[in-house]
């Protein structure tokens, strides 16, 4: 089932003394989430991700705008009747019920034609538990489970009624690094197997990039960019998106376009077609550098980190806005660590120019 948002806005009254304006947690969302896809809602803390999710689940009422599930307008439908599954950040498993009872809870609520017998419920619960591989823990209480197991129970509880839409609010944030990795792949697998349209909230860009079919990057309640993770990464619409995606983060320089060339400091880095003469922000991805004795960009060398396959060259440049420059290059390169200066060539598809004021991406051809 696809989900369509039309001018969806949520305002909260501002409780700060003297401030009159409302907090706009979700600002004019206008988009379509395709059927059967895993979509990540990505943004820094406090940008309105949970609010957006709660609007979809029906726990919050929008200030304005509409929500459609498929062709149905569900804007005024209460949470009870929306048929979505929601996994909370802290799981919210009922502590007094066993895993089995927790999973069966949504099934027991079914009414009318959908009503199930006890045996059918047991069977469905077990089936769902097997999908998530917790069927051996069915008679435990939530406090007898590890964080990862609890998380899987929470997912099972949300999945068991086969919701039209599955919403997950930072479900991995309580897990350790290893378990996070494991569970996110699990999540991907479960989503593939069930084909349920899934929206996954996270502030971890790596997580979002690795498992989603589509990401929605937002900032302060406003959608910045939507698209396939790789497309967004390769072609960010503004400086915020460029900075938000990628580890290590993109290197940002203060530069200037002059007569068809891009200058960083005194270095003429590359040619630019279709941009007016003016100062710009220059973003260069860490993997966008190539070592070259005659390279166009010279930086003072700080050090080298060798990490097996890659090495990271750390250097400084007076024009850098993001501190030390991290350049990731293949380990086959040899770097003379005693040299005071390194020179790079820059790959044209890894360099982006942004307007100095609006920080929007400049549409130009880089050679």
């Amino acid at each position, binding site marked *: 089932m696809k989900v369509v948002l039309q001018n969806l806005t949520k305002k909260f009254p501002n409780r700060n003394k003297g401030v009159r304006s409302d907090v706009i947690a979700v600002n004019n969302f206008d988009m379509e989430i395709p059927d059967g896809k895993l979509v990540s809602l990505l943004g820094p803390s406090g940008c309105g991700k949970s609010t957006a999710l709660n609007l979809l689940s*029906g*726990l919050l009422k929008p200030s304005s705008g509409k929500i459609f599930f498929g062709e149905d307008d569900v804007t005024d439908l209460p*949470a*009870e009747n929306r048929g979505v599954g929601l996994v*909370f950040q802290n799981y*919210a498993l009922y*502590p007094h019920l066993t895993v089995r009872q927790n999973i069966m*809870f949504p099934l027991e609520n079914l009414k009318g034609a959908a009503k199930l017998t006890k045996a059918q419920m047991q069977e469905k619960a077990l089936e769902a538990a097997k999908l998530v591989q917790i069927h051996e823990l069915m008679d435990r209480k939530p406090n007898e489970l590890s964080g990862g197991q609890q998380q899987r129970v929470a997912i099972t*509880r949300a999945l068991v009624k086969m919701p039209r839409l599955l919403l997950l609010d930072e479900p991995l944030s309580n897990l350790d690094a290893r378990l996070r990795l494991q569970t996110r792949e699990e999540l991907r697998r479960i989503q593939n197997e069930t084909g349920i349209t899934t929206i996954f909230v996270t502030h971890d860009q790596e997580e979002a990039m690795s498992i989603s079919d589509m990401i929605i990057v937002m900032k302060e309640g406003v959608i910045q960019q939507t698209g396939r993770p790789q497309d967004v990464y390769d072609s960010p619409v503004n400086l915020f998106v460029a900075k938000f995606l990628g580890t290590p983060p993109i290197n940002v320089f203060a530069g200037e376009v002059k007569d068809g060339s891009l200058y960083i400091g005194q270095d003429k880095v590359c040619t630019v077609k279709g941009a007016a003469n003016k100062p710009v922000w220059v973003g260069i991805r860490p993997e966008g550098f190539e070592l070259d004795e005659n390279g166009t960009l010279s930086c003072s060398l700080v050090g080298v980190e060798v990490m097996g396959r890659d090495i990271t060259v750390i250097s400084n440049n007076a024009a850098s806005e993001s501190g030390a420059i991290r350049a990731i290059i293949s380990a086959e390169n040899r770097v003379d660590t005693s040299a005071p200066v390194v020179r790079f060539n820059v790959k044209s598809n890894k360099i982006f120019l942004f307007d100095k004021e609006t920080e929007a991406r400049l549409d130009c051809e880089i050679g």
Partner: protein
Amino acid sequence: MDKNNWKAWLYLLPAVLFLGVFMVYPLVDVFVYSFEEGYNSASQTFFGVGGYNYSYILHDPYFLQAVKNTFILVIITVPVSTGLALLISVALNSIKPLRNLYQTVYFLPYVTNTLAVGLVFMILFKKTAYSDGLINLLINWFGGESVDFIDGPYWAKMFVLCFYTVWVVMPFKILILTGALASVNQDYYNAAKVDGTSRGRIFTRITLPMISPTIFYLVITGFIGAFKAYSDAVALFGTDLNAAGMNTIVGYVYDMLYGNSDGYPSYASAAAIVLFAIVLTITCINLLISKKHVHY
């Protein structure tokens, strides 16, 4: 290990001493008294040791009446007050703006003196030669017959006593329950809502289990409190409770200690031990039941 134990006991010593002197010793003493026959408090002598004191009180119609009264009081007021308090707390919890005001109003009886409140109740319910009292006016209004709730039939007096007891114990229960309700994590309710749970089912499947430890605490303390009722009855019916037929077990103990002719401490002790046994039994039963039904 041994050394640590020794130290632990040393630290505990003050507490143990106080508990011993002021709690254990009196309890043992009462127990001993209750088996001393013909004890004379002036000469501090007794004739012999045996179960006569128990046999006496168990054949004393006043004691039997007191036991009956106490049990009726307990059986009626504990469930009624806990149930009502739960109802009111849930209602309070769902109307946020006025919650604090209501909480204050409901808490007033708790900070008001029992005897003063009892007096007010008496005036409300009493029927004298000059006036029928407010409650009887109401009853007349609805076409009923006046009843003397204070000096009249047994059921009327019992009704007032129960009504009064419930009224006095409710505020504490409401306070505790609203606190417990407010501390249930909102996410559980949200999760249940998203899963399409009806309000009734949310209450029975989530709210009740979540606050079950609190309810259980209120039931146990309620039982114990009701078994120890005395001042409530005095406030309503005066000090001669035996004559009014409204005595309670604690009232009987008190009368035996300080009543006519220097009192009968042995009978009082026997009655106190009987009360102790009853409360202990009921509390154990409560604990056993709670093991099954209280979560966590």
